[in-house]
């Protein structure tokens, strides 16, 4: 037994030394990202975490701040349609985080909310404004969305990250944290050697994945702006979404119910919610078998929460010109600016009111730059359809949020 313990000690010592050396090296290769109180998952590939889910999961503790926070959650169209920088520029009273994750369904949104809450104290939670961007593609059951053999049955992308480094363990009742949330930052630092290898692997296999596995690199902004879908592309897209929805003919009612429950939980805990019915190009909306059921479900949810304080609904169905979309779902950059301004018109009064009500001096101490709203107004006039129409949750009527002079409301002292 002594011999075995001796060997264990030797192996542990060597492993500790090696791990420590690699850990130290990682700080030279990629310094810790600055902790600014917000996250932008669109730029995850510039962080040590590289993927959106990993970035969110490991860096979410930065959201534990008392400032007003706008947390954008949804799928990839929320990620590219409400870019962090464009929304932040128009919403001066809050720190805007874009936490949208590609291919997310409602289950994953719910998990995302839970994971945010896990790292926040009561005060930080109360200053959350969740913006939930939805479209029909998000209402697929998890087992059907990720049926692949590469993961445990029923795991979302976030679940995969939970278990990947042992921060959570799998139980019959769901994931249970093995690492206390307050230790998340320490855990994220300790696993840096893992991140280093993942980064090197990704970099070394980019060409391989492109050529052999057919993984296409992300389009540049210019390419996205000029993209045009052919009839074949449209047909392929419809087939893709049918497969992605689990080859069913209707959206999942369980996912609808889960969205309703998620919003309800948020409102009950005193957080604010903006539910955004994201537009898709008209050809897709008209051709998809899922759109009618989805439209009914979202309308019901809007009606269900109408009148609840802290809830706002935003519909942008008029922004459906085919030529404004890169593909069947994602807006081109110029349209994304319009999306952002529409959202800002709802968020600015919501967040500034809350902020000034609790701390009138806060906007001017925050260091956040107020946006040049005249310029914005000029930009927006290029797409006058962008005039922000929101549905007032209290009376259900559409109201024009923009001020009479065309300027979006500013945070005032």
């Amino acid at each position, binding site marked *: 037994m002594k011999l075995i313990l001796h060997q264990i000690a030797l192996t542990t010592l060597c492993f500790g*030394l*090696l791990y420590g050396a690699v850990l130290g090296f990682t700080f030279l290769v990629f310094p810790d990202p600055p902790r600014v109180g917000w996250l932008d998952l669109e730029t995850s590939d510039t962080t040590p975490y590289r993927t959106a889910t990993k970035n969110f999961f490991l860096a979410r503790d930065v959201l534990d701040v008392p400032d007003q926070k706008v947390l954008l959650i949804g799928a990839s169209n929320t990620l590219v349609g409400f870019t962090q920088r464009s929304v932040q520029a128009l919403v001066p009273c809050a720190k805007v985080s874009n936490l949208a994750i590609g291919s997310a369904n409602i289950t994953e949104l719910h998990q995302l909310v839970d994971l945010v809450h896990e790292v926040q104290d009561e005060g930080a939670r109360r200053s959350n404004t969740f913006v939930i961007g939805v479209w029909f593609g998000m209402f697929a059951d998890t087992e059907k969305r990720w049926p692949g053999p590469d993961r445990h049955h029923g795991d979302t992308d976030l679940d995969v990250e939970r278990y990947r480094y042992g921060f959570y363990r799998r139980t019959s009742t769901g994931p249970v944290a093995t690492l206390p949330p307050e230790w998340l930052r320490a855990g994220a630092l300790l696993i840096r050697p893992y991140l280093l*290898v993942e980064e090197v*692997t990704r970099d070394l296999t980019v060409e391989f994945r492109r050529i052999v596995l057919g993984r296409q690199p992300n389009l540049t902004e210019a390419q996205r702006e000029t993209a045009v879908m052919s009839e074949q592309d449209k047909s392929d897209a419809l087939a893709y979404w049918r497969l992605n929805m689990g080859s069913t003919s209707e959206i999942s009612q369980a996912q609808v119910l889960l969205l309703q429950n998620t919003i309800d939980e948020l409102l009950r805990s005193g957080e604010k919610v903006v539910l955004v019915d994201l537009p898709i190009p008209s050809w897709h909306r008209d051709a998809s078998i899922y759109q009618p059921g989805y439209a009914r479900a979202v309308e019901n949810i809007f009606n269900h929460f109408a009148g609840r304080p802290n809830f706002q609904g935003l519909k942008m169905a008029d922004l459906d010109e085919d030529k404004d979309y890169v593909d069947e779902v994602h807006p081109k950059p110029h349209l994304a600016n319009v999306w952002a301004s529409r959202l800002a018109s709802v968020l600015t009064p919501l967040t500034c009111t809350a902020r000034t009500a609790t701390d009138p001096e806060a906007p001017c101490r925050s260091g956040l730059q107020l946006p040049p709203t005249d310029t914005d107004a000029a930009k927006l006039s290029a797409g006058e359809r962008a005039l922000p129409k929101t549905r007032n949750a209290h009376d259900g009527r559409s109201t024009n949020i923009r001020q009479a002079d065309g300027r979006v409301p500013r945070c005032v002292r």
Partner: protein
Amino acid sequence: MSFVSPIFFAFLAITVFAFHLNTSVAYRRRVMAVANAVFIASYVNNVSELLPLLAFLLLGYAGLEAVRRRQTSSSLAAGIVVVLAVYIFLKRFTFIEPLARLPFPYLIVGLSYILFRVLQVMVDARSGSLPDRIGPLAFFRYTCNFLCFVSGPIQRYQDFATMDGLDAVRLDADRVYEAFSRIVTGYFKFVVIAAVANYFFMSFSPQLFGAAPLGPFKLSLLYGFCVAAYTAYLYFNFSGYMDIVIGIGLLLGQVLPENFNRPFTARSFLEFWQRWHMTLSEWFKLYLFNPFLMFLMTRFPAPGLTAYLGVAAFFVTFLVMGIWHGTTLVFVIYGLLMGAGASLNKLWQIACANRFGKKRYRALSQMTAYIYLARGLTFAYFAVALTCLWVPELHQFLTLSKRLGITGTGGAFVLLALSFSAAALILDSVVAWFSSRGDGLRAVSEGLVYKNMSLAIRILAMLVIASIFNAPADFVYKAF
């Protein structure tokens, strides 16, 4: 209990610690019995899931006792028939499942390997080659040894008995390092190399069943790549498992039999099976091939027929061995392919010896071109036949066969054989070059620091690379 779970490592640490706490044989046997019970219990959620396994073990023990007491061929035959029938029922072979099945979920992991052990002791009890009467607890420790429970190796009772609770291995610092190194290497193979091969396999194989049209060359290339990736996955997964259990066995005073001996250096299909899953081949040789050949030779005593009777015996043995791997009709096809491979190989040997004479045939088989071509053909045949293991449903198998046709399968076979031959030749040359210049390195590699740092590097690489994959790896042979 997954071999990659923290619970398994805790279980292992406790078992090894408890085992070495006392040197009493009776104590150590109790420790191993408890460890086996805990290990098996970890696979189930309630007791009812264990009942069929317990019943099978009781039946096996009753059969063993009946054969030992009566010492008649009829009692052995009856015992074998009953045990096999219950095994087929419990394993839910597709042809029996619609007729009868137990109406609740139960554990079938390990059942195939228990079957081998039960049949072995029954046959040996009849022939009188068992050392003593096997007590029920010894029977349990032998059939349910947690080291061999999931995927073998198939150890003979006579070998197990020599180390049951005894110090068959005298541990010293080098032996302990060897055990640790073997375990880490096993995990590295299993968690990293096999997982990477599986990643490629899983990435490409769906295209074989997709609707997209593929030209004959692309189809052959794709199929060839998939079968090569699956073969690599299977080998590193299974041999990794063997390294792990053999290493753990050393720490528990057991020398488990090796299951692999560089199988891809085999120059013929028959040699391949002397190097691949060796304990399975050995079992079939002892308990099916030899008795069956003896039976045939008794029935057909003409000396000129002996070689051809061997061909028939090989066919039947490999057919049964193939069928053992699964419960669907595709595994019958697998068995036929294995049987055809073995008997054609034997016929080739007979034909060459007749045509060239033994001396010239031996000279021919020592030629470099012959060696590498034979290695390539052996690999290609085995890899293509393994398709049955990853397309276990008949309708899928037929769809794939139809799509590939003779051209696709043949093209892939030729591509595999030639690429493997070339790769093996290059690899052997590189290894030989390094071996001739490795004296200095060898001296360094014996040092304590080097040895332990190399262990640490393997552990780190394994942990880090394993985290890249979304799901933990599992042992593929567990399913057979």
